[in-house]
């Protein structure tokens, strides 16, 4: 008895399904925090609205610039949540989860497929009017709950190879999201052990956005200093969403593939793990450079999987990355290179032949 082999293309579909699911959850969490901040009178005078910062991760610059000035929270929310033309919007991400699941359908369990399909049925009518009718918080809470629901349906009855692809996609996306989120706020910190009130608010919003709010509240004596919070997000041994734990787990999954075609990905993941371990949290000036390097390594992992494993016709194994090219820059750049998250996965293709 053996499991049905996993097609390379479907492995990619499962990976993308997981990435989009994680991204949907992440958008819901970050927008919730940014939305709350935007309702505070003392935040409105900030040079860049928190929502606009979040939008810089989830929307192309041109889409943001096309919004009428001054950019109103409502317009930014619509762009982030329901804009069909923005591939990074919540609506598009939920649709992408469902489309990828539909393609991978025979490899998923009925419960998982129906959970995902149900969410799409509920989400497909989301538009600015629906946002107004239901209320922003209701939509965001619903999204987070539904994402948890799907995670609950990702169970042990999935073929092991599918589970692994879902884990890899989830972890890579989680790392990518967290690094980008840190990149938004790291340029700001001042070097003091205790945060100012506004900065503390910002960092707690980051913690909540990373899905760690409950974790922090349950930690006795959790230090709410900047190094303490960065430690929690980057290197906390106990905290499963810390970058160090995520990258180590990602490396384990990639090594389990035992695929020569992804040797370069394993190598990049090793470098990522080393990079996370090596961040000197006492020297905050070095953190932006480290984040930038992490992003490049995440992109390298992603690219290596795309071309080495998910492509229907994998070519020769990718060349092992040149470690020198991935070495930390001599001088840290002014800010991490935060670009819009990648998109991909299921696309419409020629398919117009008829059954009878």
């Amino acid at each position, binding site marked *: 008895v053996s499991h049905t*082999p996993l097609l*390379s293309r479907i492995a990619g579909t499962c990976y993308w399904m997981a990435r989009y699911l994680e991204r949907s959850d992440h958008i819901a969490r970050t927008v919730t925090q940014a939305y709350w901040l935007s309702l505070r009178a003392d935040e409105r005078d900030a040079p860049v609205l928190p929502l606009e910062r979040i939008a810089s991760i989830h929307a192309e610059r041109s889409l943001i610039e096309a919004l009428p000035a001054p950019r109103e929270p409502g317009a930014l929310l619509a762009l982030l949540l329901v804009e069909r033309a923005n591939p990074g919007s919540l609506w598009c991400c939920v649709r992408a989860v469902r489309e990828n699941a539909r393609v991978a359908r025979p490899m998923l369990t009925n419960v998982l497929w129906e959970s995902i399909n149900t969410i799409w049925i509920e989400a497909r009518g989301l538009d600015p009017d629906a946002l107004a009718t239901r209320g922003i918080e209701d939509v965001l809470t619903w999204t987070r709950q539904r994402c948890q629901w799907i995670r609950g349906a990702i169970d042990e009855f999935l073929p092991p190879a599918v589970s692994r692809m879902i884990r890899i996609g989830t972890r890579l996306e989680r790392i990518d999201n967290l690094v980008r989120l840190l990149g938004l706020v790291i340029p700001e910190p001042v070097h003091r052990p205790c945060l100012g009130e506004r900065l503390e608010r910002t960092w707690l919003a980051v913690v909540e956005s990373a899905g760690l709010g409950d974790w922090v509240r349950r930690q006795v004596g959790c230090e709410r200093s900047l190094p303490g919070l960065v430690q929690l997000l980057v290197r906390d041994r106990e905290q499963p969403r810390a970058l160090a734990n995520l990258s180590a787990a990602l490396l384990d999954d990639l090594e389990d593939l035992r695929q020569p075609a992804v040797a370069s990905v394993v190598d990049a993941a090793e470098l990522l793990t080393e990079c996370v371990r090596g961040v000197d949290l006492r020297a905050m000036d070095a953190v932006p450079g480290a984040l930038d390097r992490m992003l490049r390594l995440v992109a390298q992992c992603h690219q290596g999987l795309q071309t080495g494993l998910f492509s229907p016709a994998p070519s020769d194994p990718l060349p092992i990355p040149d470690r020198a090219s991935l070495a930390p820059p001599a001088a840290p750049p002014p800010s991490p290179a935060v670009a819009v998250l990648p998109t991909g996965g299921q696309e419409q293709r020629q*398919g117009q032949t008829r059954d009878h």
Partner: protein
Amino acid sequence: MPIPTLPHLSPHARGVAYHEMRSDGGLRPDCKPLDAWLRATSAEALERKRIEAQRLFTRRGITFAVYGDESEGERLIPFDVIPRIISSADWKLVQRGCVQRVRALNAFLNDIYHDQEILRAGVIPAEEVLGNKLYCAAMHGVEVSGQVHAHIAGIDVICVAPSQWYVLEDNLRTPSGVSYMLENRAAMRRLFPELFMQQRIAAIDHYPDLLLRNLIHCRPAGTETPTVVVLSPGSANSAYFEHAYLAERMGVMLVEGQDLFVDRDHVYAHTIDGPCRVDVIYRRLDDDFLDPLAFRSDSLLGVPGLFAAYRAGHVTLANAVGNGVADDKATYIHVPAMIRFYLGEEPVLSNVPTYKLKDPGDRAYVLEHLEDLVVKEVHGCGGYGMLIGPTASQAEREAYRARILADPSDFIAQPTLALSTCPTFVAQGIAPRHVDLRPYVLSGAQVEVVPGALTRVALKEGSLVVNSSQGGGTKDTWVVADAS
């Protein structure tokens, strides 16, 4: 010239269609439990169940796409919650007739691509087969495993009177709809378990197992543990749900052309563990798109070199290439003769009398009686491109007349059929609607049919078009043991 008149094929028979629950004016005994249930169930309760069924189908993603209707995206096929009941005696007749027909059609396909005895015997004019645009010359001499060409056949039959069934059409290329047959049953079982307890309804759930068993049986010679796959054009295809459903139920890979490659006349799938040899392909892709090297060079859906691997006997394609010549409407006329020629039997199920418009006498008659007839394209399918004379406007009939005159050999005509009716839950309540039936015939070690079929129902009052692409719906079909 007029074809022989049959009592239930009168031109305006729609008004006197046979109501399947009645026999000789009374209620059929095997329909009594359903009748009692319908009488005891309010319209509100049926509506609640209809909505529940719709939710269930939506949640499970049981959808199809309508070509040329980009705005609609995926649609649900309307599902009627009132089942259709077929007596076991009627079912045996249909089953026997369909099995007989598919045996003859398989023999015909094997013959015309080899010795062509039926043509040499003059049973069918050679030019009608060899000149048919669906005859695939490249298949000549190709040995297919077990001499099975139509592994999966959908035979469209209609009932016009008690125990009087006619074959309307054979589908031997990529017949679809079996997933709806299975999902309709699952939905009914969930919605109305009490009805299943009251009657002995034949089970159909084992269809995917039979299908897999037959596909495995037809594996290339020398293959011990074959890898079976379902080949789909992709998620944009109208029947993608069905492709995914069957792959999932059989536990096999659902592949697209891009997932396969051919190396030294063997077919492989790209998997994360490396190339995986593929032995049997249940393809849901038209012949033209299968292999850009052998057929349409612009196909992005196929697999270069697949036909060479097939010819070499290294992979089984189900259904075989070139089946179109046996299921088009021009060849349909000859199926009874095939049955007599290959099997030495009389047809169990009759054909609907058919006019060949390339015949001048038939053509003249049809053109004079367009308002009474149904005219179909010889290579048409899905209810597209046909003229239903009695319901068409004068302008539509005249436009069709011009098409016929431009190329008469592209058309056949049949009397307007008195398709039987079944009680159907519609907006006005329970009303009779016309139905047809598609049993799925599997060929492999033997030719077999699960005791059930897809019933398609024309939901509009008086309509005879049952195709889902044109507003038709489906019903669960119950083969029930006789009440006695």
